[in-house]
């Protein structure tokens, strides 16, 4: 069973991580959503967020635009980060649960980082390869 968290705002992926306040934590079993719950968080208290993610055994965080510093902290904690994602929550979750790539389809337009290869771990981790594959 995989566990993924998404930053949410109403029924969408929250466009900006740094002002998001709600997480949806979802357990996925055999390509289907087995359980989901909502957790509030303070984006200014990253260590608390990371502890929550670890406590909930979240392996992957899907979010919108995110600054380099929080992205690094999340990645350094061992959580697979898929940033700069935009769109309807259920659609993104549906694709992800089935193991279908959410990048580039749900990737925010306009993030044409000219230094993708060097500006942060999160840019190198934009694909949602299965989590187990990452561990291999």
């Amino acid at each position, binding site marked *: 069973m995989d566990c993924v968290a998404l930053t949410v705002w109403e029924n969408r992926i929250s466009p900006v991580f740094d002002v998001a306040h709600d997480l949806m934590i979802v357990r996925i079993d055999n390509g289907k959503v087995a359980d989901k719950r909502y957790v509030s968080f303070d984006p200014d208290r990253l260590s608390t967020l990371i502890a929550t993610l670890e406590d909930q055994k979240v392996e992957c965080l899907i979010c919108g635009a995110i600054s380099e510093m929080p992205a690094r902290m999340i990645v350094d904690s061992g959580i697979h980060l898929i940033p700069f994602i*935009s769109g309807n929550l259920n659609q993104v979750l549906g694709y992800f649960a089935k193991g279908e790539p959410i990048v580039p389809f749900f990737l925010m337009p306009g993030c044409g980082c000219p230094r993708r290869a060097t500006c942060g771990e999160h840019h190198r981790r934009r694909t949602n390869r299965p989590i187990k594959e990452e561990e291999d």
Partner: protein
Amino acid sequence: MMQILFVSENPSGLDDLKNGLLKHPQVHVDTVASVDEAWIKINEALPALVVIDEIVAGIPGKQLVEGMIKKNPFINTALVSPLSPEDFHEDTEGLGVLMKIDKQAGESQAKDMVEQLEKLLSLYK
């Protein structure tokens, strides 16, 4: 209709961009000269994009973007900036700014803007 709102005290400086946008029949452009006026427009109907000038009422555009997304993270923004693409990315990373607008932006950036907006809006259908 794709509503684009310009926030600028010197809107004529963005005329080429505006004229380029208006060549797209689905685009409607409004211009306001202050953030307060922008909020009135935004509260009436959320525009597809808010284009913010480099400085408005002495406040840097980036600061205005930060204030706007704190109030409503679904406001799509573009920012006029003299920075290089690399420095702009560094400066605005995490704010979700759709694109940097050059001071001499014209038809080409207008086309790019419409394409990027169409892609973004399609994600919410």
